[in-house]
């Protein structure tokens, strides 16, 4: 079982989401995964700890999906983000998009990850050998419902 917009605590399987967005009218599917990488700015990551305000995060993922359907009519979307302790190469986020033609599938997919980083209440803590830190760029207070 899956929801098209969900926060999970277990490993993310690509196939499940690619299958979900596929349909007879789809000529293109793009799947993006954000994975935990070992080195960031010369510092070695041991693991990441993700936390979410789950019900609001799922609503915001669904909002992003609605924005995509509005901008690229006909796309079918699934977005999943994992929380908890994630290790090197684990998938933190997956975005699957299908469309009749490839251009929309690429554009809408990239739009989704940008929006996730802007409005979805999920937080990442990097844990290194000699310390840890919550990551997050400061932004000015949003006008309206988190849309820009």
């Amino acid at each position, binding site marked *: 079982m899956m929801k098209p917009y969900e926060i999970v605590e277990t490993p993310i399987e690509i196939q499940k989401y690619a299958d979900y967005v596929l349909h007879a009218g789809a000529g293109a599917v793009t799947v993006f995964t*954000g994975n935990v990488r070992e080195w960031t700015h010369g510092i070695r990551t041991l693991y990441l700890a*993700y*936390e*979410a*305000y789950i*019900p*609001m*995060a799922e*609503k915001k993922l669904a909002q992003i999906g609605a924005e995509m359907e509005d901008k690229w009519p006909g796309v079918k979307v699934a977005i999943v*983000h994992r929380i908890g302790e994630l290790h090197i190469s684990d998938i*933190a*986020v997956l975005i699957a998009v299908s469309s009749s033609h490839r251009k929309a599938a690429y554009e809408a997919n990239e739009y989704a*990850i940008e929006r*996730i*980083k*802007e*409005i*979805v*209440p*999920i*937080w*990442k*803590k990097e844990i290194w050998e000699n310390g840890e830190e*919550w*990551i*997050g*760029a*400061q*932004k000015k*207070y*949003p*006008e*309206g*419902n*988190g849309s820009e």
Partner: protein
Amino acid sequence: MITVNYFARLRELTGKSEETIESDSMTVQKLLDWAEDTYPGFGKSTVHVAVNEEYALKEDIIQSGDVCAFIPPVSGG
């Protein structure tokens, strides 16, 4: 009574995930001011507030029974 949730850095700073405030109504700005006064280092200028799982403006009114969340800078993805 207003419920507030803390996440990430703010959860660690306050040492709690959730608490309740005895108030019938207040603006989002007032809630941020209260948090900064109560928890030194809260950093209200970088924190957004969600009311009932939706981002709220500083002038929005929070009512008794609402569930609020302090949202520090997000870093999903």
